[in-house]
């Protein structure tokens, strides 16, 4: 008996990739999932950081999808390679710093490398024509197939009937008649198909699954690049952009101030990498200083953090400054008044 053909499915954790993979399984294709971790994935991180979110059940939707489908999932760390996509997207950014089209091309090209290395026959994605304004348009779907190098090895089961035949179809591995012709932004066809397959409780992320599509996050990333004089980031930077209140009192430094206990605990882990401040005389937040500071800056930062402590109305608040080498300094400061904190300090 012939071995079944093998497809690698790009699994984001959302409904479309779940359905695309299911359509292939229904046709007897051996499917394994690939999930790429860029560092900007909304999955996981922030849920783990904020204490108020910790009561919510946590699940990684890509793993959940794989379990629903009964397929293996390979999570691939592309954090380093992905930087080039973020810094120099050939096709530009979307509404924020989201390089969606370049991102999709990059992921499909990585999937192509993966199928070649692992003896798989083709790639499937949950893309639907017209579903997303940047990367999933009639004009851009061929761009993804072409520039990724996948060409006719890339099959989109949910909208295949609207697209030219791919190799899996023309070779008879997959029955084109049993594929779909979804198009447009409506989610109704997908929801109906999900119901037909008996999928419930699937993820429906409101703002997509990537922090780069988030306006506030993008502003913080742009500020980081401006402050450093170039487009650059490390993993810790992009994690810290997700946490706390960010204020930049001078071009040379910014403060990351925890908003609640969970964030405070998370920031604690960075006290050897960044100088930090905490209030001693009154309960209050923990703040990290990112950038270069002199004594005047430290005092200003201390007054600012005092403002966010329970001593905000007190005459004096004791603040402890800890350098990255562990050296401690105690400061007595008067908390800044709200009108002394210009709006433009908030990033």
């Amino acid at each position, binding site marked *: 008996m012939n071995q079944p053909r093998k497809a690698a499915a790009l699994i984001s954790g959302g409904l479309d990739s779940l359905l695309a993979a299911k359509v292939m399984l229904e046709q007897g294709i051996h499917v394994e999932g690939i999930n790429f971790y860029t560092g900007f994935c909304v*999955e*996981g991180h922030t849920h*783990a950081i904020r204490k108020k979110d910790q009561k919510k059940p946590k699940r*990684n939707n890509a793993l*959940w999808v794989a*379990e629903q489908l009964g397929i293996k999932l390979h999570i691939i760390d592309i954090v380093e390679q992905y930087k080039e996509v973020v810094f120099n997207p050939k096709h530009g950014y979307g509404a924020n710093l989201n390089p969606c089209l370049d991102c999709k091309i990059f992921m499909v090209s990585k999937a192509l490398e993966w199928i070649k290395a692992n003896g798989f026959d083709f790639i499937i994605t949950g893309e639907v024509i017209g579903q997303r304004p940047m990367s999933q348009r009639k004009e851009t779907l061929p761009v993804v197939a072409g520039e990724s190098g996948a060409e006719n090895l890339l099959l989109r089961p949910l909208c295949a009937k609207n697209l030219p035949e791919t190799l899996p179809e023309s070779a008879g591995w997959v029955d084109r008649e049993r594929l779909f012709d979804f198009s447009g932004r409506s989610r109704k066809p997908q929801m109906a198909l999900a119901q037909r397959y008996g999928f419930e409780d699937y993820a429906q992320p409101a703002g997509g699954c990537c922090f780069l599509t988030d306006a506030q996050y993008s502003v913080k990333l742009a500020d980081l690049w401006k402050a450093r004089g170039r487009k650059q980031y490390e993993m810790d930077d992009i994690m810290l952009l997700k946490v706390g209140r960010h204020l930049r009192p001078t071009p040379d430094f910014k403060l990351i101030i925890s908003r609640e206990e969970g964030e405070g605990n998370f920031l604690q882990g960075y006290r050897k990498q960044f100088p930090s401040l905490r209030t001693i005389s009154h309960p209050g937040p923990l703040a990290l200083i990112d950038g270069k500071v002199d004594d005047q800056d430290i005092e200003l930062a201390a007054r600012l953090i005092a403002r966010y402590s329970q001593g905000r109305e007190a005459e004096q608040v004791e603040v402890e400054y800890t350098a990255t080498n562990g050296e401690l300094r105690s400061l007595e400061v008067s908390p800044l008044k709200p009108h002394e904190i210009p709006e433009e300090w908030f990033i």
Partner: protein
Amino acid sequence: MNRIELDCRRLLCPMPVIRVQNRVAELEAGVVLEVYCTDPGVLNDVPAWCRINGHKVIETRSESGLYVLVIEVGESE
């Protein structure tokens, strides 16, 4: 029994899952991997990954912010 430790403290999901996945790929069936984590998300994600990929979580311990998962590596296909 061959027991190996993996430090995933301070990593947030899915990084601990990726570390477990990559380490398990190097190990033979029957080896026991003890994973140390600080992100409570691992309590769901690592067992889910193990179920999908044919490995077994044989013990889970939580002690003051530290989560320890003990995994027995399954047969690879």
